[in-house]
């Protein structure tokens, strides 16, 4: 019993020390406060392991979309709403989970597009990607 206490104590101490070390030098340290998601926001990690089929909507500019986008994503922005909406509707079906993204945490385009989809089409399975395109590029590195 004594031996167990000594050995496990050593293991825990070592783990604690290494944890502290890793935490201080690791470039990918998570935030200190809980990521508070707003209504309809979804984390990329959660989205990627979703069991429902997902359709990605890119709410950024056409130029940015053409440079690079999430594979399979459809462009839908407010610059050319009517026409792009029609294109989106062709590809949409009710089983799909719709996730809209724009540049990063700072942009509002994804929320605007998501809101408009909800208002005009009465869709409910709509989310916006927390962290946007930026989070995707980090994740896919």
């Amino acid at each position, binding site marked *: 019993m004594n031996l167990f206490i000594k050995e496990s104590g050593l293991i825990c101490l070592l783990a604690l020390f290494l944890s502290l070390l890793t935490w201080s030098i690791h470039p990918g340290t998570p935030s200190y406060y809980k990521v508070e998601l707003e209504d309809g926001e979804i984390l990329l990690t959660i989205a990627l392991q979703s069991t429902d089929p997902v359709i990605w909507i890119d709410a950024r500019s056409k130029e940015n979309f053409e440079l690079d986008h999430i594979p399979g994503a459809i462009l839908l922005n*407010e610059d050319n709403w009517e026409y792009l909406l*029609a294109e989106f509707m062709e590809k949409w079906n009710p089983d799909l989970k719709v996730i809209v993204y724009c540049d990063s945490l700072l942009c509002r385009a994804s929320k605007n597009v998501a809101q408009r989809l909800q208002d005009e089409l009465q869709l409910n399975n709509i989310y916006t990607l927390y962290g946007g395109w930026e989070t995707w590029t980090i994740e896919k590195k």
Partner: protein
Amino acid sequence: MKIISLVLIIFSPLLLQGQMQFQEIENQANYKFGDKEVRRIFKFKNDGDYPVTFNSITSSCGCTTTSLDKTTYLPGEKGEIEAIFTIGQREGLQRKKITVLTDDSDNSRYEFILEVNIPKIAEINTRLLYWKKDESLDPKTITIDFQPNEPIKITDLKTSNDSFNLDMDEVLTGKKYIILVDPGTARNSKNGNLLVKTDFPKDNPKIYFFHLRVQ
């Protein structure tokens, strides 16, 4: 005497104040139907004691561009930033934020808001007519309510799938239209687009798309 002047020389930079005075931080713009863009000028003056250089100007949206004559302003110099917001097909209250970073350590960051309300041209009940698997194939309606004061006509009504039967009724002349869409009686999956063309605004008439689907 010498010591006092030396002290003053050494510490005088701390006494100098920077101050970029901006005329308006929030600028509301007017919009009339048909406008493709909204331009706003934010005037400023360097009210401080030393020159200030603008390091960067960014806007919250790619649809808003900014331009500045030059980047460095001497004390007393005036200048202006022009912001151009390309409306695209946006509707409702738009607030675009422009952030300016300067090299002035006292006030390195300024934010402006360009605000404009884009009234909707039409209030439409839905863009999607969707008959679910177990839903009966009753006709559904699209209601288009034009908001502007002048009369607006629907000039064309087309569908990409002829098996959907259309019937349009001008309930209120130049204002309210109701389109009845009949999916027919055949219980097979199909979909199509509905195109509604109008004559307003004159230089760039609005076209509305609708999607029809039978599951």
